[in-house]
């Protein structure tokens, strides 16, 4: 595209304008004027591509640090990104992001989260960004069983005390290893008959946290689904770039499988239908890696 456009003379460009009435409107003062909506649309598409390329070429540590900072600055509706980054990365990946955050922003991520977040999610978020979990397979079944009971009691008590502010709930979610948490959720189902995320329908952040920790592919395919919905807001749409760029080297294969299972259509087909231009090609290239 660049090599073609760059070579056009004035007359070529004039013919282009006259030949594309859907982009250029004949103005009363005798010139072909860009249709404003189309300019905005193109700017938007180039911006999405630019954002995706910049994010893709960044070191993963810087990427995660910037994503978390951006979420902090955007405010409460974006805090889910902090949960996502802190919970889906490995212990070493999160540590790297914390290092990058020091370099980029002259603070630790945990001090910024503790200082700037003022809602009920503060305890949970400080704990999540500070976590350095054991990553081996060893799990203490007795402790997992007892912690399943603790979670169950806290959730049942939700009308008296918000479980997201319960110190025991936060401790379990922010310090236990991921294998340990999976065993807790298994015991939870045995005690309660229901999966823990079904019980947490009202408590979105806790629900997201648990999904991110134990079944990240389910979480990511849901986020992608929301990005394609009619009436999806800017924040939901941005998730498309974020999820694909940040997971392309990790578990994109599993996310694609989960997406197919959940929505009955392949992720590539959905991107083909819903996205345009070079941005679309870029995304499709990323999700096809490793195939």
């Amino acid at each position, binding site marked *: 595209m660049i090599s073609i456009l760059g070579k056009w003379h004035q007359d070529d460009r004039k013919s282009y304008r006259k030949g594309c009435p859907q982009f250029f409107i004949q103005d009363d003062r005798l010139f072909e004027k860009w249709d404003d909506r189309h300019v905005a649309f193109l700017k938007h598409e180039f911006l999405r591509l630019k954002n995706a390329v910049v994010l893709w070429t960044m070191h993963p540590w810087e990427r995660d640090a910037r994503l978390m900072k951006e979420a902090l600055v955007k405010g409460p509706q974006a805090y889910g990104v902090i949960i996502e980054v802190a919970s889906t990365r490995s212990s070493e990946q999160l540590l790297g992001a914390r290092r990058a955050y020091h370099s980029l922003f*002259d603070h*630790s991520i945990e001090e910024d989260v503790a200082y700037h977040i003022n809602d009920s999610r503060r305890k949970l978020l400080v704990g999540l960004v*500070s976590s350095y979990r054991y990553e081996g397979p060893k799990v203490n079944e007795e402790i997992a069983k007892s912690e399943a009971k603790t979670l169950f009691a806290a959730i049942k008590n939700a009308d008296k005390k918000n479980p997201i502010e319960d110190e025991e709930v936060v401790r379990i979610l922010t*310090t236990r290893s991921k294998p340990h948490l999976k065993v807790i959720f298994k015991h939870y189902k045995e005690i309660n008959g229901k999966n823990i995320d079904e019980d947490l329908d009202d408590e979105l952040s806790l629900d997201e946290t648990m999904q991110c920790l134990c079944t990240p592919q389910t979480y990511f395919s849901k986020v992608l689904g929301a990005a394609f919905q009619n009436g999806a807001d800017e924040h939901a749409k941005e998730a498309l770039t974020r999820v694909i760029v940040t997971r392309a080297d990790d578990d994109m294969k599993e996310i694609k499988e989960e997406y197919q299972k959940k929505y009955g259509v392949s992720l590539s087909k959905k991107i083909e239908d819903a996205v345009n231009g070079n941005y679309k090609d870029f995304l499709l290239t990323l999700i096809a890696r490793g195939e």
Partner: protein
Amino acid sequence: MASLRLPDSIPSPAQDSERLSLALQGRGVDEKVIVWILGHRNAIQRKQIKDTYQQLYKESIIHRLESKLSGVLKTAMILWMNEAPERDAILANKALKKKGKKINQLQVLVEIACASSPDHLMAVKQAYCSLYECSLEEDITSNISTSLQKLLVGLVSSYRHDRELVDFNLAKSEAAKLHEAIEKKQLDHDDVVWILTTRNFFQLRATFVCYKQSYEVAIDQTINSSGNGDLGSILRGVILCIVSPEKHFAEVIKASTVRYWTKDEDSLVRAIVTRAEIDMTKIKGEYFKMNNTSLDDVVTRDTSGVYKSFLMALIGAKI
């Protein structure tokens, strides 16, 4: 400044390993040679010896030392031969698993979190996961009473910024938040925990100075007078380790010794072994200011045998 003295010319790691191997052979053990060599090598040199010994004799020198040495010399030497992150992970684990532990035994957690760099704390946590198959935070939860968990888990989870960046307005406002919480006897208030566990050390020192300026009394004295037993004691330890780790360790050493005997060998060993290559010279200065006696004299007086020679080497006795 480190107190450890190194000889003018150091034998190669292979030569050292050979002499050590001879000292560790046979039925007995030549403790003097072991202390003479290892007590005069820095961390890098000791690692080289460890690696060379392993290559030459297909055995870990630490295992050999464990099987041949005994008593308090063994404890001290094993700690000395482990690299700093593993050493501190071992000390933390020992403190957490001790039955009937007293509050001052938890000091080691405060020391690791507040008297060393953020990178060192991270390395200790990584070593802890490798050694004990769970995270340090999880073991704190399993072994410490609930009232202290929030602060201790917070302290070890943090990865503070390590540059000297201070916001004086923030220091003032956070000094006020701390003051309010302490006055209300809410020592485990979230704000107290977050300020003390997430702010960088330079910022916190500025906060404590602002506190003294605004309220005319030092923050640790306010905590003292608010009572609050164990939690207050830990908080004071946190503040002292941040403001003056050398004062903290001088106090630890003082509390561990009583005229003519050492009542708390573990604390004495810990203080000397962990700080010999960091700030033992400053600690000795503080100790003298506190007690009008030199640490060298006290160690000479209160310990004996080859163990005494080892401690003396670490605190910088002349070669």
